[in-house]
């Protein structure tokens, strides 16, 4: 098997060096040589949103019909962003459609992230639209009962990994040029603290957790790959949130479970913090770095 075949590293042929030095050097490199937005290297490390109107920030959100995705759409729309809100069944997305009805900058699009041709189709439809924040929010849990050692359901693993790990990286492939053409240049994925191998302390959710570890690895690779294009890659977590994702029967058992509007606001704050200096980080909702 070929592993070290540098000529094929089309997008990121960086010399092998310590990651810290490598990442630290990127900011200056970008601001100078690549001519990207100066905003990406402000002293505070916080990237301000550009003014609306013609330089309107555009956010593409997958799984925007309910839960965290819906909150992302609502809150970014309130900020004055243009929203491309995708979901599998727009006809049933009552809440999302209500937001779109009152805001001409919110565009609802049908998309199942399992259908790669549909992803490519959507990317083609918006070919000339810079996308500042590609927000991979869609995810599935796979069902607790399908992931118990002794009766693991193997096909469920593929479903979970296809949505949670393949979907995001495929979206990043398809929309790479849109993000690259934008001002903020961010590719963000909603991961989970359940994907932290270092942190898990009770055995459960084998497939869900593995899918999140897998997507964390994918996005770490991607961060290294696209940094020299000025693209920032980030992972955020909502914390335990009272959405359809967690069965109502279990919600009561989770102390400090949070409402989706709070969780989304925290993640948006963390997404604002991403720069080329901290690209590839895994931000907990409270702003702390989660260990892998």
């Amino acid at each position: 098997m070929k592993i070290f075949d540098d000529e094929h590293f089309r997008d990121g042929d960086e010399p092998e060096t310590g990651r810290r030095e490598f990442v630290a050097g990127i900011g200056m490199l970008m601001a100078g040589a690549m001519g990207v937005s100066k905003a990406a290297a402000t002293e505070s490390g916080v990237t301000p949103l550009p003014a609306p109107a013609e330089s309107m920030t555009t956010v593409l959100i997958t799984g925007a019909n309910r839960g965290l995705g819906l909150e992302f759409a609502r809150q970014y729309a309130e900020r004055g962003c243009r929203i491309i809100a995708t979901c599998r069944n727009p006809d049933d997305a009552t809440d999302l459609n209500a937001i779109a009805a009152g805001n001409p900058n919110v565009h609802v699009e049908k998309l199942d992230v399992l259908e790669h041709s549909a992803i490519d189709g959507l990317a083609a439809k918006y070919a000339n639209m810079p996308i500042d924040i590609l927000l991979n929010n869609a995810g599935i849990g796979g069902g607790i009962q399908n992931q118990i050692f002794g009766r693991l359901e193997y096909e469920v693993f593929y479903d979970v990994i296809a949505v949670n790990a393949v979907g995001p990286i495929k979206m990043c492939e398809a929309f790479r040029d849109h993000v690259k053409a934008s001002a903020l240049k961010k590719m963000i994925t909603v991961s989970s603290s359940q994907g932290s191998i270092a942190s898990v302390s009770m055995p459960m959710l084998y497939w869900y957790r593995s899918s999140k570890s897998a997507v964390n690895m994918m996005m770490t690779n991607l961060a290294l790959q696209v940094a020299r294009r000025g693209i920032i890659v980030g992972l955020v977590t909502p914390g335990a949130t009272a959405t359809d994702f967690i069965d109502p029967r279990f919600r009561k058992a989770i102390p400090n479970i949070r409402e989706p509007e709070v969780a989304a606001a925290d993640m948006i704050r963390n997404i604002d913090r991403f720069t080329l200096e901290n690209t590839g980080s895994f931000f907990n909702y409270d702003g702390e770095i989660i260990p892998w």
Partner: protein
Amino acid sequence: MRSSFYSVAVRPQLVAIAAGLLALSLTGAAFSAAHGGAALMKQFPDPADPASFAADYVPTVLITGSNRGIGFEFARQYAERGWNVIATARKPEQADALKALAAEHPNITIEQLDVTDFDRVDALAKQYVDTPIDLLLHNAGIGGGGDNQFFLDMQWDVWRQVLEVNTLAPMKISEAFYPHVIASRDKKIVTVSSSEGSITKAMQPRLYFYRSSKAALNMAMKNLALQLKRKGVSVAMVNPGPTDTDFMAGLPKKMLRPTPDAVSDMMRNIDGLTVETTGSFYQYDGTIIPW
């Protein structure tokens, strides 16, 4: 498999008490037989008590992918140590080196196994139902081809194959052979992972699928370690380092370590594994690789 999983997944003391009670009752005996408990009751040593095993107890290791490279060397070194070796390979008829090795070492048994053939996994587990397996050694793995996993040109069908071999198969085989492991003295489930699966150590973008499959595997095995610790089972990942095998054919020889060294290093780490250190990810030099 499900019934035998539950029958052994209780405290060993309860198994002993239950065995006594069940022997008094025909109904109980029928229950026991129906739930795969008969094999457990026949065993003289108490799997929960290593001291109850005879001094001349011969441990058994099952190794996947033992026809070449690291798997072959594992088979050779465990056989020379005097262990019983169940050496599996996808195509034993083509595994000439392994067959020659088995001819020299009567303690090596070759079995056909494609780790992605889950029916065959179950059949093999059934075939060895009375054999305690001290070390379940998940060695079989694939890289997926470096040029199938470039960003902007991902070959998604390859991704599924890589996951199937590297991530799912070790979990399936662990499920199928869990009763064999729990009945053994040493009770170890070890997977050959890779430092490429360390998110912390990733410094160049490459091998998206391979790396993700190993990160996913590490998570699944970490879960398994947490799950089985109180059963006395130790679970770990070991990393061979860059090794001079077909797997690393693209690398210059001077960057690679000899296979016997890589394997003896991993065996040393496996020897040192206990339930206290379960869930660890061992570098070949014995240090812990960060996730």
